[in-house]
């Protein structure tokens, strides 16, 4: 579903991603792991369209998207959630989600009809809110939610665009154990209808969820394989996992 | 188009540009380090001119009054910074625009209350009233030459201050990354006040020196403020070097444009068209310059920020 070929990005003298070639198969949960500074967020940025690679190509569903703008990729079914929560703080939870639904439901160059009257948008938004366990908090301003709930909304916003592939950038960032379990359950629920590329540090979550894992170290892809193989891969252990998994 | 005219306009352009640099330097530092848009910067220029006129009137001497006027303007600047402007550092740009715009209104009225609504006289130094003969036989106003001299001197001093002194190093660090500078233990408040005082003194100098040439009147600040902003946008926010280059560019383009474009159009178009087209096009020339620079270098020519 998603193909990267030789994707390279430099910032000044620093190479953030170097010659990354990677494939995400339709229907899988593909995890992307690596030490801090490995280039994971830069890679996600290039896939989502926030940045353009210096060289290399990116194809989504067999069509090239390397130079497409963000909103065009979203229209094709490629959505992203952010590592640092980026929601519409003064909007209610419902309005946040309805906004994303609205983007794909006809033209928003509509100046006269009150948007509050559009039941269809609100209903769909409510359904997504239920999906992310925020059904009772629909009218709460997003900025007032707890951290865990904000992270859930963060993912929910991406889901509300009805994507075929969703890029989750550290969805569990800053979460306690209970919240993390809920997020893991959420990702397991959505895998039925959306392919997932998951960037995470939480190894427990990664090994429970991932069908395949890719490891990025210093901007280069060092391995792509099923979790069991990754655990035993000497180079990966040396570069990244260290003693944690040996235990 | 004679060479004499060309040379004279070039010198005028340099002279104007150097004075613009004085304003732009303070403005770009304040913007670069404190991230604050200060529309009242032009008011400090106006206050400098008025103070100079009064002090020169009292002391009877231009050169005695000049340093006094500088210090007085710097004090006004410090007073403003400590009481009002310091509260704006944390606010968003729009708030800063509004607040400093309010300061412009207040400053204009206070000046009117003290000095009246009519423009006042500020005479240049008696010794520099006449023209000087330059190589090539051209006569040029000696006062304007003096302005160029003072402008260049200040530019060199500023350059030394910023690159060779400790304060200058702090200023440069603050301009490129304020959070880092704070994290490294720099006493931000004192630094800000000092930067502001320097900026105010520069404004005062520009106002005092340009006073004899341009009119000293209420509202003189607003006209030159826009030019100063154009300069720092072209030069790159936070960069003194950018302010220097930008100011010279703007000074030259504006002066030469105003002088030469109408003549140029007169040769091409009938007089009616030329007399309308010339002034309006030359007035917008610097904005076209700004737009062009921004198109190729959206951060200006020498952006200080990383």
């Amino acid at each position, binding site marked *: 579903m998603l193909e990267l070929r030789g994707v390279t990005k430099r910032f000044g003298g620093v190479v953030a991603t170097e010659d990354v070639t990677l494939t995400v198969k339709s229907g899988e949960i593909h995890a992307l792991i690596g030490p801090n500074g490995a280039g994971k967020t830069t890679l996600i940025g290039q896939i989502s369209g926030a940045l353009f690679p210096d060289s290399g190509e990116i194809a989504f569903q067999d069509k090239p998207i390397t130079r497409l703008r963000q*909103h065009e990729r979203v229209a094709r079914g490629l959505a992203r959630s952010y590592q640092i929560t980026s929601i519409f*703080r003064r909007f209610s939870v419902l309005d946040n989600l309805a906004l994303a639904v609205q983007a794909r439901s006809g033209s928003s160059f509509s100046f006269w009809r009150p948007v509050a009257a559009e039941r269809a948008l609100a209903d769909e938004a409510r359904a997504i809110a239920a999906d992310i366990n925020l059904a009772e908090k629909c009218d709460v301003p997003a900025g007032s939610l707890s951290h865990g709930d904000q992270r859930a909304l963060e993912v929910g*916003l991406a889901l509300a*665009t009805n994507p075929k592939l969703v890029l989750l950038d550290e969805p569990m960032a800053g979460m306690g154990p209970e919240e993390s379990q809920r997020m893991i359950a959420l990702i397991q629920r959505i895998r039925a209808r959306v392919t997932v590329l998951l960037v995470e540090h939480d190894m427990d979550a990664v090994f429970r969820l991932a069908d395949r894992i890719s490891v990025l170290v210093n901007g280069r892809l060092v391995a792509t394989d099923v979790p069991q193989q990754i655990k035993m891969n000497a180079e990966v252990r040396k570069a990244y996992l260290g003693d944690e998994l040996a235990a | 188009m004679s060479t004499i005219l060309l040379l004279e306009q070039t010198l005028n352009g340099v002279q104007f540009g150097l004075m613009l640099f004085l304003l732009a330097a303070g403005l770009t530092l304040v913007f670069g380090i404190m991230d604050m848009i200060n529309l009242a910067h032009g008011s400090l220029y106006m206050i400098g001119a008025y103070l100079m006129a009064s002090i020169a009137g009292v002391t009877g001497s231009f050169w005695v009054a000049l340093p006094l006027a500088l210090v007085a303007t710097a004090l006004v600047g410090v007073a403003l910074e400590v009481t009002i402007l310091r509260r704006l550092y944390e606010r968003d740009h729009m708030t800063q625009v509004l607040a400093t715009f309010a300061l412009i209104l207040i400053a204009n009225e206070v000046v009117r209350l003290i000095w009246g609504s009519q423009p006042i006289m500020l005479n240049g130094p008696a010794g520099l009233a006449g023209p000087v003969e330059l190589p090539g036989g051209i006569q040029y106003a000696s006062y304007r030459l003096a302005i160029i001299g003072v402008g260049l001197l200040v530019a060199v001093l500023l350059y030394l201050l910023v690159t060779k002194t400790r304060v200058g190093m702090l200023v440069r660090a603050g301009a490129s990354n304020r959070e880092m500078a704070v994290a490294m233990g720099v006493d931000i408040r004192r630094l800000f006040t000092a930067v502001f005082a320097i900026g105010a003194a520069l404004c005062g100098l520009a106002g005092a020196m340009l006073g004899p040439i341009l009119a000293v009147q209420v509202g003189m600040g607003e006209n030159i403020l826009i030019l100063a902003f154009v300069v720092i*946008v072209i030069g790159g926010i936070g960069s003194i070097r950018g302010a220097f280059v930008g100011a010279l560019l703007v000074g030259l383009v504006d002066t030469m444009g105003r002088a030469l474009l109408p003549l140029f159009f007169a040769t091409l178009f009938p007089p009616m068209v030329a007399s309308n087209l010339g002034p309006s096009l030359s*007035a917008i020339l610097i904005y076209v310059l700004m*737009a062009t620079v*921004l198109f190729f270098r959206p951060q200006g020519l020498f952006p200080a920020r990383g």
Partner: protein
Amino acid sequence: MKAALALLAAACVFPLAMHGLDQHFYIGFGARVLIYAMAAASLNLVLGYGGMVSFGHAAFFGAGAYVTGILAAEGLRSAWIAWPAAVAVAALAALVIGAISLRTRGVYFIMITLAFAQMMYYVFVSLKAYGGDDGLSLPGRSTLGFGLELKNPLTWYYVVLVLVVASLYLLHRIVHSRFGRVIQAIRENETRAEAIGYPVYRYKLACFVVSGAIAGLAGALIANQSSYVGPGLLHWVQSGTLMIMVILGGVGRFWGGPIGALVLLTLEETISGSDWLGPYALHWQLPVGVILLAIVLYAPQGIAGAIRKRRHA
């Protein structure tokens, strides 16, 4: 809603009261307040709702005024031609200026909008045929037909009132429409808006154009108000004044523009016209500046915000 109706009722009754009290000057004053309310409300759309700090709004206001003035000078005095022309020219100017400016961000955007406004100012100042620096006097107000003489202060006031109410209603619909929601989302979090599928630039540009168009209509009205247009209408200080009105009234709050216009113009009128201040009355800008500064520092939500807080407290 009730407050709005009360305001409308007051606005309808006001000129009749002034007429009865033989204070005809205030009928004209009321019309002026209404016109600036429209201009400020149009700025509030880009500034408060769209989050775009445009310092060049005077360009559209002044352009609308000058179009009306120039057409009148050339003999075209029908409101049915001049006023839509003013709107069209202002909208076109907004399209061009917006298309270029909106490619920039932050302070650069502020600067570029300012620069464009100054450019227009210089262009109009240089038009010696139409008054240049001194401005242009119109032969009289626009002609409306239907036996309505805009020269009559009462007629003029009510025509203005109808247009202002219509434009405020339009703005209300826009703010609560799909478009309005997207624009506010863009103001709130532009990156995320793009990331959930909105081509942000297009929306901002559309907002800019609508706002400019309404400002153009206000400009056409202001030209008629005093039967005079001057380049000062395009000066950046005028942009600043409009911004002051919006901030004073409450930026991003629906009634911010109108309230700000009312308060600022009333302040100006009271202070500059007061007898007991004597010669100091000329310096009305001083207390205005002080009040503005105080509001910016201590009550950033403006007057509308303060009223809201009181109600909910």
